[in-house]
Structures are given as structure tokens and as C-alpha cells.
């Protein structure tokens, strides 16, 4: 197994932590291909991702996705310098498919394999050269933070070094924000996935019509900057979901029509308000001056708008990668893999185990 070249390495990245089978290829910080096969349609009738269905879909999608990604990039397996794969966090059975496939690929090709952290990969994608991307190139800005919001995660991170120094400042203590969207969309009969459905419906509603609770915002959880409470930068969305359910029930009990648009708008406002206020607070109190927004919920128009506004007034520069790189994909895995190779960090070998709760402090295994 030859070590990969330290500059401009050609890296193939594999992602299978949730319902997207992704294979992406980068050369250094240049994106060559980003092929994604999603099993989202198969989860619609269940109103949420079913792990076993996602895992079955990964198994059948992997080789075709790999083939297509190589074809798009115009490279062969022989040309590749290193392989990177998401080894966690994520759904255990889903991770297993990508990890086994990646190991087989490493074994077959003799290329070094990097087992990497999915959350950090969401940040790594920001380093790819793209028009309008000020983070492009090999260097991350100093004082960088990342706000990751998706169906599987809601986190605020501080990144001192993308390859070996990432800190979790706060996260959801129950549902991910995207999960809350899915559950509320179901309550309102708006279909799956909930994010786009609620975002669209909310545009015609009044966000001030109903006031829903902001989780973990009470002083006992927040504390002060000097004496932080136990959940100063954490989120909770399960109480909000319950509040929406109660609200819908009350309208029904009174025999009134349910004001779906107003509830959607008020729910979305509650989610977006608490996410952005806590994220900006965490940035201000931790000297973060540049914030990357990642994860599928970055597509949400209100989240982008309010994050932009609040970052501007706090003097924080906001970076939002193109949407197809915000959702789960293989290119972000390849992008982080390339950073590890360029930093001279050693590969993981083929004996590691996937870890569904891999901590964000573990950038590579």
C-alpha cells in the first residue's frame, strides 16, 4: 500500500450513514464528481427514514453509484490515491454497507483507506473550490464554527483544525431539527420529507399567530456567559412537537378548522429562532467569526434568511455551500479525506469498526 501524495491527492469518498448512498471524487480541493442515490422515495409512506429499508437500498445502490461517479470524474480506480468512508455517526446498519464496500475497494485496489467522521465531513465540503465560496483553498479561516442542521443531526461545532481539532459546543438532546419537521408535517398532513413541505406552507401563514415554546431557553438551562447552565448551547425539539400536537387537538376539539399555514409558520419560526439565536450566542462567546451552515435543513429558506440576518448583526461571516453539497453526499467525505492526506495523517487500515455514535472529536479513526 503506497502512501498517497501529499499535494492534490485524488480521493474517492463513500457515504452511507442515512438514506443517501453517495460516492464523490475530488482532486485536492477540486470537485470532480458527486453521485448520490437516495432511497427517500421508499420512506415516504412511513413518514421517516426506516433504517432497514435504507440499508437494503445502500447494498443495491453502491456499485452503480461508484461506477457512475468514476465515469463522471473520468478516472479509474487505478488513478485513485486514497479512499475515504463515513464510519460514523449514523444508522448502524446503513454505515455497515458503506464501510464494508470501502474496505473491499481498499483491499481490491491496494489504496489507503480513511475512516472519517460524517459531521466533520459536512464542514470539509466547505473547503472545495467553488464560485462564491470564500473558504475555498487549502486553508480554513481562523475562528471557524459550523452549524449543522439535518434530519439526523443538529450541532454547533468549533473547528480549530479540520484534521485534528474539532469541538462540540452544543447539540440537540432529543430529536434532530429535521426529525421535528417530519413529525410536525405528519401532524399537519403535509407529507414527507417535512422540511420543504412546511417551508412552503409557512410562506402563506403568519408566524406570530401562535407562540410555540423555544426549548432549553429558560435561565436554569442557559445560565450566564460566566456561569453557563447545563444546556446553554443545546437544543430540544420534542417539547415543541408536543406543543404543536396539543395546538392541533385544541382546534379539533373546538370543531374549528385547523390553521395549517399559521401553525407551520409559527412552528418553523420557533425552530429557526432557537437554532439561530443559540448558534450565534455560541459563536459570540467562543470567538467564532466565520460560520459554515451545513446539513439538509440548510435548504430551508427561513433558516438561511434568519441565520444570515443574525450573523450579519453579530459581525459573523456566514458560509453556505451549494445545496447539493449540504445534504449528505460522497464529495464531502472525499473532501475531508483529501485534507487528511494533505495533512500527512495516516490511514485507518481495514480493521476498524463503524461507530454509530462516533464523537465529533474523532475526525478520523
Amino acid at each position: 500500500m503506497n502512501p498517497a501524495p501529499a499535494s492534490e491527492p485524488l480521493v474517492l469518498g463513500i457515504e452511507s450513514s442515512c438514506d443517501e448512498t453517495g460516492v464523490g471524487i475530488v482532486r485536492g480541493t477540486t470537485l470532480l464528481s458527486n453521485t448520490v442515490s437516495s432511497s427517500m422515495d421508499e420512506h415516504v409512506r412511513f413518514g421517516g427514514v426506516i433504517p432497514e429499508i435504507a440499508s437494503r437500498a445502500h447494498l443495491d445502490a453502491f456499485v452503480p453509484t461508484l461506477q457512475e461517479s468514476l465515469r463522471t470524474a473520468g478516472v479509474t480506480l487505478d488513478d485513485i490515491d486514497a479512499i475515504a468512508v463515513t464510519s460514523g455517526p449514523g444508522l448502524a446498519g446503513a454505515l455497515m454497507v458503506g464501510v464494508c464496500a470501502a474496505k473491499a475497494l481498499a483491499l481490491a485496489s491496494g489504496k489507503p483507506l480513511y475512516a472519517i467522521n460524517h459531521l466533520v465531513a459536512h464542514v470539509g465540503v466547505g473547503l472545495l473550490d467553488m464560485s462564491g465560496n470564500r473558504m475555498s483553498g487549502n486553508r480554513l479561516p481562523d475562528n471557524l464554527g459550523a452549524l449543522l442542521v439535518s434530519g439526523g443531526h443538529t450541532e454547533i461545532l468549533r473547528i480549530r483544525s479540520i484534521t485534528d481539532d474539532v469541538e462540540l459546543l452544543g447539540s440537540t438532546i432529543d430529536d434532530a431539527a429535521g426529525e421535528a419537521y417530519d413529525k410536525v408535517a405528519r401532524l399537519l398532513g403535509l407529507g414527507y420529507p417535512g422540511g420543504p413541505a412546511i417551508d412552503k406552507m409557512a410562506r402563506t401563514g403568519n408566524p406570530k399567530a401562535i407562540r410555540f415554546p423555544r426549548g432549553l431557553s429558560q435561565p436554569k438551562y442557559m445560565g450566564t456567559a460566566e456561569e453557563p447552565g447545563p444546556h446553554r448551547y443545546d437544543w430540544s425539539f420534542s417539547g415543541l412537537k408536543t406543543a404543536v400536537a396539543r395546538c392541533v387537538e385544541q382546534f379539533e376539539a373546538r370543531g374549528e378548522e385547523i390553521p395549517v399555514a399559521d401553525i407551520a409558520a409559527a412552528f418553523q419560526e420557533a425552530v429557526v429562532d432557537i437554532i439561530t439565536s443559540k448558534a450565534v450566542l455560541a459563536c459570540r462567546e467562543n470567538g467564532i467569526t466565520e460560520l459554515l451552515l451545513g446539513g439538509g435543513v440548510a435548504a430551508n429558506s427561513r433558516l438561511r434568511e434568519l441565520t444570515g440576518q443574525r450573523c450579519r448583526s453579530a459581525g459573523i461571516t456566514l458560509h453556505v455551500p451549494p445545496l447539493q453539497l449540504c445534504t449528505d453526499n460522497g464529495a464531502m467525505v472525499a473532501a475531508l479525506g483529501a485534507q487528511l492526506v494533505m495533512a500527512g495523517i495516516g490511514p485507518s487500515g481495514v480493521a476498524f469498526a463503524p461507530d454509530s455514535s462516533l464523537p465529533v472529536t474523532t475526525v478520523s479513526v
Partner: protein
Amino acid sequence: MLILAIDTSAVASAALISDDAMEGVVDSFATEDTRSHAEVLAPGIEELLAGAGVSSADIDLIVTGVGPGPFTGLRSGIATARTLAFAWNKPLRGLMSLDAIALEVAESTGAPAEFLVATDARRKEVYWARYTLRGGQLPELADGPHVGFAADLPELPVYGAGAGIYAEVVKADEDFKDTQPNAASLGQFALALLAAGRELPDSTPLYLRESDAQVPGPRKRAL
């Protein structure tokens, strides 16, 4: 003819099978436990190839066990086999995993003309299939594979770890009560079938159970 066989329907295992080798098996490995497939399979295959001095160019065919078996473990072998076949540009075939035990039964002394093979399906159930044996020939699958309670199996001698677990309710064969499907026997079976001019199926997994997902019912209205 050199076959790389892989099976992870219960334990993780791989084998190199050749019609030139004694008894057909060049070398093989199998784990004892049923839960570490993702860690041990790739290193195991790597060592297997290195130990036998075999390179990808020497391999003619990859054969994977397609189950039935616990899903996550089963997929790790199929994902590995499919990816190796793609990367090395080799043909890939699948074989029902219970066949591996059936072949071992056929080669044992005193094998009955009709028997069952059973493995652990968890949730108090077994994966099972019925085989028939005509003197000196390969075992023929007569029924199955199925998944169900051990107590509901036909009244025939039962071979394999699935019988061992439920020995109080089935006629478990003592010598086979811990036997799991393994790649060495599976590969030998594949080689024998090919020699007999038979076709092998593709690598589609035999899950036998649905995903367990429930379509949520309509929300209860507050009245």
C-alpha cells in the same frame, strides 16, 4: 478454476476453493462470533490471499452466500463480494447459505435421505430448508428456505446451529448442533455444481422477512 467464496450469513468466513487443491479448499478462515463481520472480514480476506500467495489475477469467480441470515451481517459479505467483483472485474454468483451445511451433512457418515438444515434467525425463530440426498450425489433443495419457529418444523432430523439452540423441540443432530454456514463448504458446493454443469444464482440477498417498518395509521382526532 479458483473461487473466492465469502459467507456472512451467521459467522464471517471466506475461502479459496480450487479444483486443483486437495479436497478443493486452498485455505479458509471463519470467525466464531456472529457480530464482528465489518471488522474482521476484509483483514481476513487480505490474509487469506497473502497466505496462499494468490493475487486477484488468479481468481476466476467470486461466490457469496446470499443468506438467509441476520440482515446487517449478511449484507456485509454481499457488499464485500459485490465490490471486489466490480473492482477486479470478476464474475459474481450467489449461493443459498444453508447449502453449506447441507453439503457437510451429505459428506458425513450416516446421512439420512431427507433432512433439514436450520440456523439461528433470532427473535426465537430459525431459518430452515429441507434437503434430499440420493446416494453419492449433491444434496438437493426440496423446500425452503423459510423462517419460522423451531417447534413448527417438519419431523425430520435437523442439522445446524439452529437445531442446537432448540434441541428440546427438534430432532437435533448432536454432531452438527453448533455448525454454522461457512465459506469453505459453500465454495466447495459451488465448485461441485459448476462441475455438474449447473447454473449458480446471482447475489440477491434472501431476507425472507420484511423490513418491519409500519406504515403509520391516521392520527387520532381529538373529539
